[in-house]
């Protein structure tokens, strides 16, 4: 007795012992009806699996290209010396990112002081590793904040087009880390990350005047966050 399951595994050339494979192979050679059964089964499964392809959404394509562009910029920028940057607006932005990174470092350190922190963490998709228990998520978040700081420092040299692409990439990453923070049960962190987005958008569009108060507000919130983190308050109650 040869079942359809056996036939399928034979077709896949996987999951059968050698002697079983030989037995089914011999049966298929000797019984045309059995061979037809396998052919019909595979044809049905092929039909079920043959879904039409859909085009990639334009915004996804743009996001992938921006992410690659951002990764390439970081690769190029990594060995280069840090450039002194003078724009007060971007200095404030960099300060805010640094403050967030500092706050997170303190926060994560308080949560799990035994967790070692990799010095050169790999780039991780936060969506793929969004768990409060996953060190890759923390490493990715810290990497993101550190790289954002570096990228903001290099914006002054960039052309308007390159600057817009870079900011878009940062915003895209920010969005994913906010989502990851939410999934990890850290709504406060998600909110802070999201509140950074409109300021970055202003930078991309060259609206300096509206950013100053927002940056000040963010810095204020970061100081409160850090103070409460030092006091040991859970993030959800911040």
């Amino acid at each position: 007795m040869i079942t359809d399951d056996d036939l399928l595994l034979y077709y896949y050339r996987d999951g059968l012992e050698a002697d079983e494979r030989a037995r089914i192979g011999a049966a298929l050679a000797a019984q045309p009806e059995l061979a037809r059964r396998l052919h019909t089964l595979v044809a049905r499964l092929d039909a079920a699996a043959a879904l039409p392809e859909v085009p990639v959404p334009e915004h996804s394509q743009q996001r992938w290209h921006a992410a690659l562009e951002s990764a390439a910029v970081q690769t190029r920028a990594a060995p280069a010396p840090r450039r002194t940057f003078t724009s007060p607006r971007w200095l404030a932005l960099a300060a805010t990112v640094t403050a967030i990174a500092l706050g997170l470092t303190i926060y994560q350190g308080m949560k799990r002081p035994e967790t070692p922190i990799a010095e050169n963490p790999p780039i991780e998709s936060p969506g793929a590793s969004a768990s409060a228990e996953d060190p890759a998520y923390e490493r990715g978040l810290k990497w993101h904040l550190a790289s954002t700081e570096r990228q903001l420092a290099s914006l002054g040299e960039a052309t308007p087009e390159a600057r817009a692409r870079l900011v878009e990439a940062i915003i895209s990453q920010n969005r994913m880390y906010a989502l990851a923070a939410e999934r990890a049960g850290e709504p406060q962190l998600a909110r802070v990350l999201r509140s950074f987005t409109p300021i970055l958008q202003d930078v991309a569009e060259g609206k300096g005047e509206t950013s100053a108060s927002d940056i000040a507000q963010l810095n204020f919130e970061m100081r409160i966050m850090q103070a409460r983190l030092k006091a040991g308050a859970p993030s959800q109650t911040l």
Partner: protein
Amino acid sequence: MLTLLKSWAEPDAFQAVLNERSVRWYNACLRITRDPDLAADAVQDALLKAWNRRDEFRGEAELSTWIHRIALNAAIDLTRRRKTRAEEELDPEAFEAPPTSSAESAYTSEALGRDMTTALERLTNKERQIFLLKHVEGWRLDEIAESTQTNIGSVKNALFRAVHKLRVDLKLWRGES
């Protein structure tokens, strides 16, 4: 060959592969996740990992295959983490395909494409993913077991359940007994 090897370190060459192959990657991930955002996240995850290891690839085919596989793994992982449907937490054995009312009322020839898709959608997430990984992507059972964090026996069982449901649905559509 040397030129090819060197070219992967250049962003433009990498972007060119993205332009050429991204539809395949995205659709493969979309079939696994059934969620456009998760599928896009999975592809991005794979792209960034591939960029970090770009010097290891020896040609476009190898790079594309690698990204395809990593993206699928990311898609499986993302779907597992999301867990939007409560039944996914429970024993898939308890969730058989909903009964089809009758062959003549449920299926018409115009709806062939839709019903083929529906047949796939009647599977649980686990069954659908395992069926696609095996039948479409050609992964080995042990690779599927590793990626879906289960054992080969469970993979086989889920595959057989999927095949049974698909076979029944398609038979009904064709009016076969």
